[in-house]
Each structure stands twice: as structure tokens, then as C-alpha cells.
């Protein structure tokens, strides 16, 4: 027999869980789909789902042939205070899961051999667009990936590499050299 929960006209629908803190929606066996809300509704997901966006506010030297961590000092938002924008310039979320991460880095001088790269725990994880033989002022490499972070010790950072033969400066600003990301699936 189906159970029906009716909303009160004054309090709405209130579902109180037990002491476990868990609230589960279970489908009938063989019908493993729960659709919330209906096709015209809107579902709010809030709470502890980290999202951040940061960018650099100063030029930075990237030495020739060297993967250089980019300093990202300005926060546009950081919902869980997980981005260190003053010392290590890294995102260390406290919620385990899979994160969509996007980054960009722009060089101020005509350069070639430019790329930005997402680092995880100090090692290169994914590379972005590689400007191998295109020497142009304002080249901007971008990178996008999904990465698993364990919610305690894992962190990501943004690095830039350029191989133009000289040491060059980055461009800065919210549309030039930036990093952002959000949790897309909990562990």
C-alpha cells in the first residue's frame, strides 16, 4: 500500500529522519528511477558543496622551460573557504568527490610553447591547450578536467609553462589568469 505524505497548508511537507541523520528515497525493485522534481520544477541543492573562483591580480614571471605555479590572490567566491589565496594558492576541499576544474593562463609577451596545467598533490595531472608554434601577444591556454579529491589531503593548483627562450610575464585579471571549480559528484 502506497504511503502518501500530505503537506500542511501552514508548514509544508516536513520529513523527520531518525537519529542516523540519513534520509533515503527508495524505488520499487526494478524501477530504479527517482525524478525530483517534475519536469517544470526547480530543485535546490545547497549545503556543503564547495565551489570557488579565483584569479591573479599581478603579473608573474614564468621562467623559460619551467612549470611555474600561478599565484591566484583574488577570490570571486569560495563557498567552503577551501582555497588558500595567500600562501600556497591551492584548492583543498573538505568534501570528498569529483570536481570539475577549469583554469586559464595568459602570457603578456609574444610567446610560443605555452600551456597551463592542473596539478594534483604537486604533480601534473592534466594539460590544457598547447601553443606549440604560435607566437602571439596574449596567448591564453585553458584547461578543464574532472578530478577526484579525497576531501582531506588532496589539493589542486594551476601551473603555467612557456618555452619561448626568455622569461616572460603573465597577464592578470579575472578574465586572463584564473582557476575555478565545483563539486559535481560526491564520493
Amino acid at each position, binding site marked *: 500500500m502506497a504511503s502518501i505524505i500530505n503537506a500542511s497548508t501552514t508548514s509544508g511537507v516536513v520529513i523527520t529522519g531518525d537519529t542516523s541523520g540519513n534520509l533515503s528515497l527508495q524505488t520499487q525493485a526494478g524501477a530504479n528511477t527517482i525524478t525530483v522534481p517534475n519536469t517544470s520544477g526547480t530543485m535546490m541543492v545547497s549545503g556543503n558543496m564547495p565551489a570557488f573562483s579565483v584569479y591573479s591580480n599581478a603579473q608573474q614571471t614564468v621562467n623559460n622551460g*619551467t*612549470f611555474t605555479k600561478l*599565484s591566484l590572490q583574488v577570490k570571486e567566491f569560495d563557498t567552503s573557504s577551501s582555497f588558500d589565496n595567500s600562501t600556497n*594558492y591551492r584548492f583543498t576541499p573538505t568534501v570528498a568527490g569529483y570536481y570539475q576544474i577549469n583554469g586559464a593562463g595568459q602570457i603578456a609577451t609574444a610567446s610560443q610553447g605555452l600551456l597551463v596545467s592542473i596539478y594534483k598533490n604537486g604533480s601534473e595531472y592534466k594539460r590544457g591547450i*598547447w601553443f606549440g608554434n604560435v607566437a602571439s601577444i596574449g596567448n591564453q591556454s585553458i584547461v578543464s578536467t574532472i578530478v577526484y579529491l579525497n576531501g582531506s589531503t588532496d589539493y589542486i593548483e594551476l601551473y603555467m*609553462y612557456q618555452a619561448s627562450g626568455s622569461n616572460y610575464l603573465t597577464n592578470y585579471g579575472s578574465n586572463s589568469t584564473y582557476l575555478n571549480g565545483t563539486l559535481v559528484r560526491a564520493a
Partner: protein
Amino acid sequence: MYEKLIKIYPELATFNFASGAITLQNDGAGDYIAKWEHPTLAKPTAEQLV
């Protein structure tokens, strides 16, 4: 660091340092050799890099 390496090994002037065999890195405290897996050239010693 790059210039020091080229002085020690001039043949690295045409080497692709993004290839992964040799990685120079700067985490905010200066350049260093993060990885050296060149097939024929030995990793320079600290004395050579001074």
C-alpha cells in the same frame, strides 16, 4: 635553472622541456629539477648547478 642546464648541456637548448623527461618546476620558492629521466644525460649535481 634553465640557463644553468644549457651551460652544462648545450644540447638541451633544443630539448622540449614539456616532454616530461625533464621537468623544471617553480612552486614559489625558486626553480628546481622536479624530474630527470633523460635517456643519456646524467642529472647535474648540486655542485654543477651552483
